[in-house]
């Protein structure tokens, strides 16, 4: 590695090291605060039991499941939409429409999640209540499409970016061979761009898992384990937001550090796994 030799480079290096250290520091902070719980061997209790502070149970299993289900479901909804949208933007639409669509998508990334949730609270929640015919209308099924809307722009921008990185020579060759845009997309662009697609999906999943406001306002926050998607549920992030206000010394408050740690570890493992698999697979080609 080149040694940094100018002042500017030192500044950049410091910035990079600091942000790296901060990430590690957050992990350490969470770990230290959840250590008392982890040492008592209560981890399995916490992971597998339900939340009933009155009865001395501080389990977060229902929240963990709700978070994972919400993130997966929103990804399932959002992935085909985002992929289709990025096809249109990068290959199928006329140039002017492409620019318009892309700027709309960029605009969407800037909309605060509370705005989505607020709109959905008045539009989607009553609709879901009527459709389902029971319950309050606040459920996993209500929150998931809104989460999907939230993570779509992130994924679209990543997909479009990776399509743009496909070498011009390859796409020109398809044109020269008389291939139509669909063939170009299916046989050249997707095979070339798929590591970028996976990265986009990863980021989208991370955002869905980490978002608080949407699940807090739309999923209903009930602490029971859900057995159908039309039921009210509480995500890990919403749980942290709801329990935050407790006394620092209470068991409730301590247990949310474990929630934070779990969220951290889950996203980290997921990122690592998929990064590694992309590296391995793209290395093979």
């Amino acid at each position, binding site marked *: 590695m080149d040694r940094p030799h100018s002042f500017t480079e030192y500044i950049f290096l410091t910035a990079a090291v600091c942000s790296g250290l901060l990430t590690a520091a957050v992990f350490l902070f969470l770990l230290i605060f959840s250590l008392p719980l982890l040492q008592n061997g209560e981890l399995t209790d916490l992971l597998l039991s*339900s939340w009933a502070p009155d009865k001395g149970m501080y389990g977060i299993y229902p929240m963990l499941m709700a978070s994972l289900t919400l993130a997966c479901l929103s990804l399932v909804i959002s992935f085909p939409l985002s992929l289709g949208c990025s096809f249109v933007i990068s290959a199928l639409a006329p140039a002017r429409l492409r620019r318009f669509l892309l700027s709309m998508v960029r605009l969407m990334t800037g909309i605060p999640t509370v705005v989505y949730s607020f709109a959905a609270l008045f539009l989607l929640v009553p609709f879901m209540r009527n459709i389902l015919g029971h319950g309050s209308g606040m459920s996993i099924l209500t929150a998931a499409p809104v989460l999907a809307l939230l993570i779509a722009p992130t994924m679209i921008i990543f997909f479009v970016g990776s399509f743009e990185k496909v070498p011009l020579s390859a796409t020109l060759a398809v044109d020269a061979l008389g291939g139509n845009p669909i063939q170009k997309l299916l046989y050249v662009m997707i095979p070339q761009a798929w590591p970028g697609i996976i990265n986009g999906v990863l980021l989208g999943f991370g955002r869905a898992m980490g978002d608080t406001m949407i699940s807090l306002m739309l999923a209903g926050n*009930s602490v029971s384990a859900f057995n159908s998607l039309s*039921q009210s549920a509480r995500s890990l992030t919403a749980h942290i937001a*709801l329990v935050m206000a407790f006394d620092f010394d209470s068991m409730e408050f301590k247990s949310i550090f474990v929630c934070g740690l779990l969220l951290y570890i889950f996203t980290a493992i997921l990122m690592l796994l998929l990064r590694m698999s992309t590296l391995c697979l793209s290395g093979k080609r």
Partner: protein
Amino acid sequence: MKNRFHLFSLICATLVLLLSSSSGALASDLAPFTGQQGSLRIAGGTAHISVMKEAAKQIIQSNPKIQISIAGGGSGLGIKQAGEGLIDIGNSGRKATDEEISKYDLKLFKWAIDGVGVVVHPENSVKGLSSVQLQDIYVGKISNWQELGGADRQINLYTRDEASGTREVFWKKGLNKGDISAKANVVVSNGAMKTAVAGDPFAIGYISVGHMDQSVTPLALDGVLPNLDTVRSGEYRVSRGLYSLSKGEPSGLAKLFLDFILSPSGQQIVAENGFIPVR
């Protein structure tokens, strides 16, 4: 039943009249703020917010150099953050426990009495419940409005987060410490509860009496409707004090603010917002 409705609308009308006729605070109550400047941070109980906002508005109008920020978060947060010194005044809809008071050296100021009433959507035909029915509903034993004479629809339970003083009081006095079903939806403020119940024809929830308006219908509990009169007379028993608290003796702006809330002008604001003044 009709009488009760009349009574309720009468109260509403009185409230509107009071609100429209309120001509601001007495100058003498605002006098201590002249020449003061600085900022004051207030957070905690969500039932308190309307009164806090009006008081802050009057203070700031009389002296624009004072900044007052008001946040919710729940009584638990109010007690905790005031105790940790993160805010100047914490609000709590329940009395702080002796443990909290001694640990943080808290000083409590009770400035209003408030009831916590069960509310449903205005279209709901159920008008009253017994304590036992209420407990059965919240524990999940009664799960259909039909069992109470209403429509054949599932009861949508709403409750507050665990930091809520409203929840604490409701649980203690309304449910006699009965369990609240884990299936209940959880909302994070009195305002959010009102919005949720007002938008859900099959909902049941509970809010501060001061927060009630036409968008939700209060249910009589054991034959007593929650309103200002029944709370004041003690006939409606699910009631509580509204407190503000400070770490140690309040000083500076915090002291002036608390004095103002307890002054005739402040107590008038309390009454105008649907709570029962203590003085």
